[in-house]
């Protein structure tokens, strides 16, 4: 089976200003998204996520390289009937009402009226907008627009869903709901490809991630494999240790932080951990907690970004 998304050497530059200065948005991007995966496309602001997605949807024409979706050249009209797309901070025809809006987009797929309306009602329920079916989009809040945008992307029951920052503008509950919808779609066998710059969005749910920065792909792979599984450091908290003893611990800890009675120290080396614990206890201190720290996605991200400059 062909990949859901395949990108090969994709480049895009824009011309800006009076003199047509070149701005390189993406450079020689190549990666694949397998069918059935929930793929997080991760990168800081201006990394080139939106540009990549627009090229996939045929909204912009690449300056170099090629892209395929569901085995068809990106930009082909026919294949779009099997794809759903939510643009970044979407705007819609504001004079339409919620249900009317979904009905209109359904009609562009030539879905029969009856099926369409039923599907539209289902989707409104899915994104928790049942109450807003008869409300003009003009009166929707930002979060509501984001939700109806997601519903709009699903009206044709797509095999591949491409979402550009689906969670911006949503409160924590809204974010969770969207996350649940994405997981549900994946569980139904669909491919979900979404972009974000928020790490916690991908940390919990993604099968695969791709990381971009400054228009270049930094890495792709399984999240668990990308992250360093080794324990990076321990954070030990204790109380009632006399200052002289605390001073004596200094060579083995990198960070000391006093918080009322509690002292937190960071121990970078695993082999020193037990020594420090017993030393504190011998001197009459009380250990409160010992927390091992693995590399978080956050730290991984920073490490990769630093490396790529």
């Amino acid at each position: 089976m062909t990949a859901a998304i395949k990108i090969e050497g994709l480049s895009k530059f824009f011309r800006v200003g009076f003199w047509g200065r070149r701005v390189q948005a993406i450079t020689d991007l190549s990666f694949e998204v397998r069918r059935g995966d929930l793929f997080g496309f991760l990168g800081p602001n201006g990394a080139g996520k939106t540009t990549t997605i627009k090229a996939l949807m045929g909204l912009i024409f690449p300056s170099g390289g090629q892209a395929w979706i569901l085995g068809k050249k990106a930009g082909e009209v026919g294949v779009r009937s099997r794809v759903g797309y939510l643009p970044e901070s979407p705007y819609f025809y504001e004079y339409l009402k919620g249900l009317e809006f979904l009905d209109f987009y359904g009609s562009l797929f030539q879905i029969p009226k009856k099926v369409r309306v039923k599907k539209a009602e289902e989707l409104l329920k899915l994104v928790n907008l049942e109450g807003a079916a008869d409300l003009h989009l003009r009166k929707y809040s930002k979060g509501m627009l984001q939700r109806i945008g997601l519903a709009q992307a699903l009206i044709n029951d797509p095999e591949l869903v491409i979402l550009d920052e689906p969670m911006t503008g949503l409160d924590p509950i809204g974010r969770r709901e969207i996350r649940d919808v994405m997981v549900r779609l994946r569980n139904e066998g669909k491919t979900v490809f979404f972009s974000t710059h928020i790490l916690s969005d991908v940390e919990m749910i993604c099968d695969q991630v791709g990381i971009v920065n400054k228009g270049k792909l930094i890495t792709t792979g399984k999240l668990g494999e990308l992250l360093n599984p080794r324990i990076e450091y321990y954070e030990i908290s204790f109380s009632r240790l006399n200052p002289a003893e605390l001073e004596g611990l200094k060579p083995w800890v990198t960070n000391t932080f006093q918080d009322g009675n509690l002292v937190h120290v960071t121990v970078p080396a695993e082999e020193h951990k037990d020594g420090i614990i017993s030393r504190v206890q011998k001197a009459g201190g009380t250990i409160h907690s010992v927390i091992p720290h693995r590399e978080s996605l956050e730290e991984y991200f920073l490490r990769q970004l630093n490396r790529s400059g």
Partner: protein
Amino acid sequence: MYKLFAIANNTFKETIRDRILYNILIFAVILIGFSYFLRKLDLLQDPRIVIDLSLACISIFGAIISIFIGIGLVYKEVEKRTIYTILSKPISRPFFLLGKYLGLLMTLLVNVAIMTLVMYLALAFTERGIDLGILRAVFLTYVELMLITMISLFFSCFTTTTLAAIFSLSFYVIGYVTDDLKILGAKSGSYLASQATGLLYQVLPNLNYFNIRGAIVHSLPISLEQILLSTAYGIFYIAIFYTLSIVIFSRKDFK
């Protein structure tokens, strides 16, 4: 076909609720109504003044409406970013343009119909009565407006609304004075001027072909052939500008 209608219908819904459009229309309707009262003045007893002024209103205000709805069409979709979702559906770009254009023609039809109705209302009180022959002039004016709408749409594919308005308006004006321009250019004695005005005359549509208003007002005979030829002339230019629009629109990056 169904998709085409869906887009056209949505465009119609969008444009028909524009306040500015209503203001233009109301102004036109008032002017047409006013022509009836002009007739009451002793000097202008003739009912022809009603027809003359009404038809002129339909043409001029129709052109303003055409330009107004045409120029914002593509630009607004891009500016408001509504175009991303539409074009991500299985709709080709030429198809999208065509659907939008058809929607505008629906809006235009409603506007012309309202102005025509008001004209007949005013005429009903004169000795000319409801003369359906006048509809021939209205029809050709509508063809003219179809062309102006397409030209505005063409400009809206690559310039801002303001520039597109200026260009479309120039087109409208030049379309009427192109004959005079050519004569003027030839008389000027300057080789460059005569060549330039000659070229304008050759290339740009001559809107006088759609103007049978004078003949209608004075009840002169008009052959069906003339009407059909003018219609074909209009459709020919619409096809040309649609093709040009497609060429530009199909290569556009929606960034």
